[in-house]
């Protein structure tokens, strides 16, 4: 699978968030997009996920245009805010998009994933009963459980202490290895270096 982003531009009023961005994401790539706040990183991910539309440019997957509906694009995403559903338990949040067949199998998969991320004991709690760092790991587990071929991480490891960050990165590496390409958006260069193979820098809507 090759995702090809060509000359994508997006403006909010007079402010250009993306200005002719081109980028290629190949199968199983781990790509980092670095940049300051407001440089357009999150906008790029939202356009890739189908949550926003570009003003111009094209995005193709294996030379075919991407589906319009976000859930048909084969993309999972960890948002900058965890965006957990408070009316569901942590278990239901993680299992929401999980394609594993059979309730028992799915629950076991969710439990195993949660155990690896150190949040197994939180499974029966509600998102408002857990801390910010725990919520972030739940959001990561929720995206990994979807088993999609492209994983978008929007500042996914921020708010985590160094030890937890390392464990979480290892889990993401393990679950995406051989199955998914990953795009990590971050302002932390060390984080990007320890996780990704390819690096881009975003400055005022331009990708370098």
């Amino acid at each position, binding site marked *: 699978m090759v995702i090809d982003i060509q000359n994508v531009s997006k403006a909010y009023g007079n402010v250009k968030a993306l200005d002719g961005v081109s980028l290629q994401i190949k199968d199983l790539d781990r790509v980092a997009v670095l940049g300051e706040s407001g440089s357009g990183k999150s906008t790029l991910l939202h356009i890739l996920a189908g949550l926003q*539309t570009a003003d111009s440019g094209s995005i193709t997957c294996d030379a075919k245009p991407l589906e319009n509906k*976000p*859930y048909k694009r084969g993309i999972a995403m960890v948002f900058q805010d965890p965006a957990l559903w408070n009316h569901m338990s942590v278990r239901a949040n993680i299992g*929401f998009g999980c394609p594993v067949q059979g309730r028992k199998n799915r629950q076991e998969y969710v439990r195993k994933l949660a155990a690896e991320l150190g949040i197994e004991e939180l499974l029966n709690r509600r998102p408002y009963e857990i801390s910010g760092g725990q919520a972030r790991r739940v959001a990561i587990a929720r995206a990994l459980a979807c088993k999609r071929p492209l994983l978008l991480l929007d500042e996914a490891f921020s708010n985590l202490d160094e030890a937890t960050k390392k464990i979480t990165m290892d889990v993401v590496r393990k679950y995406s290895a051989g199955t998914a390409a990953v795009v990590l958006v971050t302002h932390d260069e060390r984080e990007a270096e320890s996780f990704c193979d390819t690096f881009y820098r975003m400055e005022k809507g331009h990708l370098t």
Partner: protein
Amino acid sequence: MKQFLKYHKKQIIGGVIYVLLFAAPVVTLLLEAGNPGLAIPNSRRWGLLRNTISLGVLTAIGCMLIGFYAAVGIFTGRLREKSLRWWFLLLLPVPQYIYALSWMELVRLLGQIWPSLLRMQIFGLLPCVIVEVMAYLPICTALALLGLERQDVRLAEAGLLCRKGDAVLYGICLPQMLPWLLSGAGCVFVLSATDFSIPSLFQYNVYAMELFSDFSAYGKAVNSFWLALPLIILILIVVMLSQNGLQQIFVPVRSHSQVRLHLSGLTKGICTAAIGLCVMQILIPVVTLTVGIGSWEQLTASAVLAGEELMISCGIGLMAALLTIFPAFAAAAILCSTGNRFLRMLFLFPLAMPGALIGVGWLELLNGSFLHGITGTLLFPALGCATRFMPFGTMILTGMLFRVDKKCLEAAEVLQSSKRKAFLAVKLPMFAPGILASGLLVFLLAIGDVGVTLMTAPPGKEPFSIKIYNYLHYGASEMVSGFCMVVVLVCLTVTVAMIGLLRMRKHGN
């Protein structure tokens, strides 16, 4: 445009239905040959308009002042941060003419102790203002409290470092609350200006009553519209002026204030008095009606006697609530996505239409058309009530949609395995409180409505509100007290049931 249509097709359909619901009866009225000259009031109607403005302005100012101090008292009291702080909303759904009755009943009861009180003639502007202030006080108090709780806490804290609590309250908190207070006052003015049930009980002539009497006397629907035009323009101006406040209500503010204001003895005293009025607003109807009924048997007798009318009213309320859900939700979604001022005015327009005029418009539209059969069913008053009360549902749903965490909806869009699952598991539970609250409000308003149902009630199917309204003109009696208590109990039961339902998922997004 193509993109817009693609993403908002359902909203556009709902929005068109919304506009058709109130535009169709108005356009029908305008197609008839009438007398546009009636739009220019003669000296008598100027007087009526002046009466309407006086009543509306005094009621709005009274509610705003008392509501502000009551909210400050609650905010600085022991109940802050507890759900019980909303106690003053307990009787909000009770129709205003029941307040009128309870005050009449109070005078009657006190008259047994001081007979001179019974000889007093209670009519005119003052009793109307008192009753309307008490009836609408919960609206202003609730908005003032919301305004206090949602202000930027840092501004008040910065002020408290250099000035006393009173100076911070009037110099920093009050200006921040002003949009909320003004929108509350605007709402109260509109409700007061379009209602004629209380003024007619206290023999105070207002413009809304004129519309009803003119149609009853001459049966010329189009003239009712031309006659109503000055009132519609007046209300639209008020809605426009308070729009800024409404805009503030829609915008979510996340910083909940925890600031402690240490107020002076005088301000505390005024706040306590305002809270006392809020307590009276609940106690007077409950106590006077209970005493007025006299016995449990009388209450059950009233309920049995009015059983059929009560069922009719509930049926109308339920149908009106169901009819409004889709268009009100669509209108709210459009307002959330565009924030367009013209569209906001358009969707709030039915607020400016007196209930009687909406009823007359629908009557004119359906009479003689192939849909004439509807006029003989309960769907007819339900349609009228839905048209009249849709803006209230839209306001609640708009507030709800602004507060829903968009990221959670986006997460469902991306991570869902099927659209059905995302709708049932994420979207519906997130929207349910707003939809239920909006439906509840329309249901309760329709149950208590007199203006629309008076014109649209089918023959032989008298709603409960009309029955009470007719009885009220003969003065307070055990039977009327019983009827009113039944309405109070129905409103309370439905409200409590709905709150219970919402509390089951209290901590939802």
